[in-house]
């Protein structure tokens, strides 16, 4: 980063709040002029809904709060609301996200820019309320944009950005903001929030519905349930058109990275905060022999260890993957090429295979002429802690692999009893 730009809203004009990740998300939703929040409680997401209910109860928002009877209905109501032209938001975790699964695909395929906060939590069984990414990885193929945040400040920032990204006419896709359960959802942090008006301006006010050309209307009509210009949403679509509609989604996904980058820069100009280029957040990667990739809050610990090892003269670095869907294959390969070993940290596993981001990175590196060695570290399942000592041990292993020039065991488990 070169010289610091003075943000439009300097830090002293931003309000300091001491909140946990859930509350930060609730604040972001509150300021984002959300029309409909339909949500159902599940640990560790519950505080988002509780906090938002308080805003509703105190008349601080115009939002219709729909306390649905299940997560399935939460997403269903969001689909109805967004189709009717509203800005819709919901939050969930783990089994709740799994219950939503069917409607996640429908939300994405109907091109409805719903924002969903996921307080990442392990899936049952055995039932476990703590953090891992197996819930988020279950929805990776559903057509949603998936962003992973590192800290509470970023949870706030990203939730607001998510509305902009999803509603951008180049995108029109739902966006999931992933924050690590308990590590972020329940951990207090001092954050800076914008004045309400600044957020309203950033989002361009209430949701604006794009206009589309439909055969049976002469003029362009708003893409919503509008009695004056009736459209049919969600018709039966067979082998003669379904594939083309999927192609639209594929194309929309391709346009996401540029929008995420633009929004990241715009946010930087507004607040003075940005997260890498919005897609990837590299740290000390330039001449690194070993680079570790990571999602979510663990990046903080990894960064700390990278700093420490760099102090000892070891050439190590880190890339935090902020955007998991669409996956930035090319950009990541660009960063990872030339390094000796890449350690891929996954807080989830595809049983019978590797961790989900390992598979992506394998794909990303395949076309490189000189490929780095790849190791997959599966860690932290069910909220198992990943303390600095453990991360350091991982780097030491990777540095040894770099020296040896080959990898014996590709899939390793970090912090599990032997």
């Amino acid at each position, binding site marked *: 980063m070169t010289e610091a730009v003075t943000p439009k809203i300097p830090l002293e004009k931003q309000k300091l709040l001491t909140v946990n990740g859930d509350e930060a998300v609730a604040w972001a939703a509150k300021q984002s002029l959300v*029309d*409909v929040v*339909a949500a159902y409680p599940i640990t560790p997401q519950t505080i988002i809904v509780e906090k938002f209910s308080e805003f509703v109860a105190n008349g601080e928002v*115009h*939002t*219709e709060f*729909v*306390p*649905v*009877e*299940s997560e*399935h*209905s*939460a997403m*269903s*109501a*969001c*689909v*109805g*609301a*967004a*189709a*009717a*032209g*509203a800005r*819709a938001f919901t939050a969930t975790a783990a089994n709740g996200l799994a219950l939503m699964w*069917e*409607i996640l695909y*429908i939300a994405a395929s109907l091109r409805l820019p719903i924002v969903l906060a996921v307080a990442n939590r392990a899936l049952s069984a055995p039932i476990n309320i703590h953090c891992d990414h197996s819930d988020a990885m279950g929805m990776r193929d559903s057509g949603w944009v998936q962003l992973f945040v590192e800290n509470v400040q970023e949870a706030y920032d990203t939730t607001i950005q998510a509305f902009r990204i999803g509603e951008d006419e180049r995108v029109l896709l739902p966006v999931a903001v992933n924050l690590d359960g308990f590590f972020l959802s329940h951990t207090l942090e001092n954050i800076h929030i914008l004045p309400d008006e600044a957020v309203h301006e950033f989002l361009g006010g*209430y949701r604006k519905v794009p206009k589309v050309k439909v*055969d*049976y*209307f*002469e003029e362009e009509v708003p893409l*919503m*349930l*509008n*009695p*004056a*210009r*009736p*459209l*049919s*949403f*969600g*018709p*039966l*679509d*067979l082998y*003669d*058109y379904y594939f083309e509609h999927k192609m639209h989604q594929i194309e929309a996904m391709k346009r996401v990275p540029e929008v995420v980058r633009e929004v990241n820069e715009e946010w930087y100009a507004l607040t003075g905060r940005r997260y890498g280029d919005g897609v990837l957040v590299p740290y000390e990667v330039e001449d690194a022999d070993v680079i570790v990739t990571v999602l979510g809050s663990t990046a903080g610990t990894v960064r700390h260890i990278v700093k420490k090892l760099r102090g000892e003269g070891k050439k190590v670095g880190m890339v935090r993957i902020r955007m998991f869907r669409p996956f930035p294959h090319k950009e990541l390969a660009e960063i990872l090429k030339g390094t000796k070993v890449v350690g891929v940290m996954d807080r989830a596993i595809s049983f019978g295979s590797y961790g989900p981001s390992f598979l992506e990175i394998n794909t990303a590196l395949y076309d490189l002429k000189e490929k780095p060695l790849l190791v997959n570290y599966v860690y932290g399942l069910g909220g198992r802690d990943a303390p600095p000592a453990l991360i350091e041990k991982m780097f030491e292993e990777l540095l040894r692999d770099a020296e040896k020039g080959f990898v014996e065991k590709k899939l390793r488990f970090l912090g599990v009893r032997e």
Partner: protein
Amino acid sequence: MAQQTLPQVPIKKGEPAYKLWIFEPGWKGELPLILNPRQLAEQKRPAILPGHRLCAGCAAPIIVKLASFAFRGPTIVVNATGCLEVATTIFPYTSWAVPWIHNAFENAAATASGVESAIKAMKKTGRLPWAHVDVVVFGGDGGTFDIGLQSLSGAAERGHDFLYILYDNEAYMNTGIQRSGGTPKFAWTTTSPVGTVLPGKTQHKKPIADIMVAHRIPYVATATPAHWLDLMKKVRKGIEVEGPAFIHALSSCDRGWRHDTALAIEVSRRAVDTCYFPLWEWTPETGYRLTDRSLSIARNPKMKQPIEKFVEVQGRFRHLLKPENRHLLRELQEWVDAVWEDLLNRATNAPR
């Protein structure tokens, strides 16, 4: 209710897509402006337009047509997955002249909750160009009795302002006639076949309308397309009330019930005449009130027909007419009688 202008919907041919208004604005239960079904069909166009691909003889589009004649202005329709959804919207065509959304099978009521909440939020912030937009849901028996019951119950409990119209063809007809919670006892379906041991479905139909009454929502009613004026009035009442309303409409299916395509209306009439499917409405203020033909039967019990009259025209009950199965038919009759007696005891307008 203040008078509202109908949305002008220009379609290419230069004609408005649908013309309704058979009830005066601010309707208080009077007769409609048009009392003749032929005239109605000729002069008004419903929210569902011709060209859909529902089977010949299907009662569902008749129910939707009649219901849409009773709409009162800007209306959004939500549809659960089912015959109606599949056959009216095969892309790139649609039969719907009103904004229409299909989400999934089990969540029509939840989707309607979202639509209704969006309307409220937009109204609150001055973004709704109408005084009111009505939300009407059409769901089949599978999507209502079975897989969609949770979302329906939840939406009813939360008190969203929408009318849910169940078109009950008494099985999963869209997937090929599998039994549902709405299938009557002894009916043949592809998953309750008549075998050497089992005589079709072995359980009775779920009392779905009574379940909705138990929610104490503002309006619940039953209807059939044969009693068309009764149906339209009930639809309008359901739309007029603030809060959730539910109409259970019997919708004969010639493919699944195995009757002649011309008999859709006749079989619906017989369902009421035999008291297999009594017509009533319920509000928290009035309790159960019999309507139309069922009220006449209550006043003159001689009009009540034996259940054979309903059963004899349907192939799905054919086995009940065999001499060795007379006891099954008797059991069905006893069940119908018990339910009817129970209703007579509850109905506030039934003669004592």
